């Protein structure tokens, strides 16, 4: 929005609103956390795991609503337990990972719907958990998001090398003295924790978007892991902020606008990468991947 001369921009007013301040802070923290984890999620091809855990978290939130305990805390506990169970079943059963996650995902979501239906009357919380409501974040939620995000990010930053090598090749990680079982379990649990925190912004249905879209966009534009990491986080932060502001002014659901902002940026990057690749090919100066930034 461009303010006309003599008119005040509505942006400063927007920033003075306490709920908007909490939403911006939560968005920035969760954008950083989820997009950074997204690098490992895409490298390990764990998008379905993420989606499954996020959906199944609805049962955890429903238990919190029914027992009048914090839905966020109960969803956190439920999802971390579920992540550990998926990990254990992957190791101990002959079922494929996809099948295990598929069973957990649908069962958890179904349990959540049944539990919520046990409460009489209209259930606005259900919509809030399905699609998120960043503007309704309370101080206590924000504090929890910041503390948990700080713990998870501290762990990932300090073990980035090990997590990346493990995501690239399990055997190489073993040969580098890394305990793959321990780090895989920790990644599952931290990811489930981050996803539940992200549900406050985007809801169980859309939260995977912030894990997948920024890193996928950055991959189109990067020619090193370092560039990929920075671009992923920058794109995620821009996506969340732009989506938040746009949804406010257009009076549209925030979570959905954030996801659509991200997918628009991805489409533009995809188009730019394809055009660059084509022009390089026509010029005969190289192949497609040279279109990425150094």
């Amino acid at each position, binding site marked *: 929005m461009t303010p006309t001369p003599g008119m005040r921009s509505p942006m400063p007013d927007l920033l003075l609103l306490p709920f908007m301040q909490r939403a911006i802070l939560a968005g920035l923290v969760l954008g950083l956390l989820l997009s950074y984890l997204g690098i490992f999620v895409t490298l390990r091809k764990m998008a379905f795991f993420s989606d499954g855990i996020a959906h199944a978290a609805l049962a955890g939130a429903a238990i919190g609503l029914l027992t009048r305990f914090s839905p966020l805390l109960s969803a956190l506990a439920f999802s971390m337990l579920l992540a550990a169970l998926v990990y254990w079943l992957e190791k101990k059963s002959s079922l494929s990972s996809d099948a295990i996650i598929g069973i957990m995902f649908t069962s958890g979501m179904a349990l959540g719907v049944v539990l919520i239906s046990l409460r009489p009357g209209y259930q606005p919380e259900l919509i809030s958990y399905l699609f998120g409501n960043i503007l309704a974040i309370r101080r206590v939620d924000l504090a929890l998001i910041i503390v948990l995000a700080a713990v998870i990010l501290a762990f990932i930053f300090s073990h980035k*090398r090990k997590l990346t090598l493990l995501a690239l090749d399990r055997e190489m990680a*073993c*040969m580098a003295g890394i305990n793959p079982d321990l780090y895989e379990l920790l990644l599952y649990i931290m990811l489930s924790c981050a996803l539940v925190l992200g549900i406050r912004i985007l809801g169980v249905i859309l939260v995977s978007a912030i894990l997948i879209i920024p890193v996928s966009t950055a*991959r189109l534009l990067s020619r090193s892991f*370092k560039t990929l990491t920075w671009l992923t986080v920058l794109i995620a932060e821009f996506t969340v902020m732009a989506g938040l502001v746009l949804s406010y002014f257009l009076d549209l659901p925030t979570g959905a606008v954030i996801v659509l902002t991200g997918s628009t940026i991805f489409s533009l990057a995809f188009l730019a990468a394809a055009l660059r690749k084509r022009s390089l090919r026509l010029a005969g100066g190289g192949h497609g991947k040279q279109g990425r930034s150094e």
Partner: protein
Amino acid sequence: MPPVLEVKDLTVRFNGNLALDRISFTIEKEAIIAVIGPNGSGKTTLLKAILGLVPCQGQVRLFSRPLRQVLPQVGYVPQRFAFDSSFPLTVEEFINLTCRTPEKLPLHGVLDEVGMTEFKGKLIGELSGGQLQRVLLAHALLHRPRILFLDEATSGIDIEGQSDFYSTIQRLNREHGVTVMMVSHEISMVYKFTDRIICLNRDLVSHGETRIALTAEVLKKLYGDNADLKSHDHDAHAGHAEPHA
């Protein structure tokens, strides 16, 4: 001098099926050893069992110690590096992933050693098969290992690339005293570059000095009547042979 590697009664089962049956052998310092055998004979399983990558029974000791205690002295080049080739990771970044303190390790030295210095800024996914194997070798050499395990490290590489790769291995062995144990299907390369051989078909068929242990009879036992055997040109001993495609 104690052997570099001692394997005693090594047995591996997958879902109850026997993959390796009580394999025992020792490897002396600075040797180049090949492990050969038909598909499904347990060559890769043997390497992985030695390296603790698959569960096994029996005893494995490297430098007279359990593997965990000597892991930094062990290098490993896998058969396949099945990672997402579209992932933007440069050669330099990939090699640095295994370093706790990258600045203290001889990154340029190992890249130079395998002739890949000029590729350090290139993406892993953009390398040819031969170049990728060289990078994996550089990765394995980073901590200056005393023993190197290669699992069909030249599969999918053209003859010239294979020859270059084996020459590099031979040079590392001669100049740095690195003991090398390699799984290979390329019997002619094995014959040319290795000192000792382990012939495997779930159990130990034969082992010893390459030119003594690798007989036409052993090859027939491993590969059956379909192996096209012919006397080796530069072999003085009658009965020593190599299969040709």
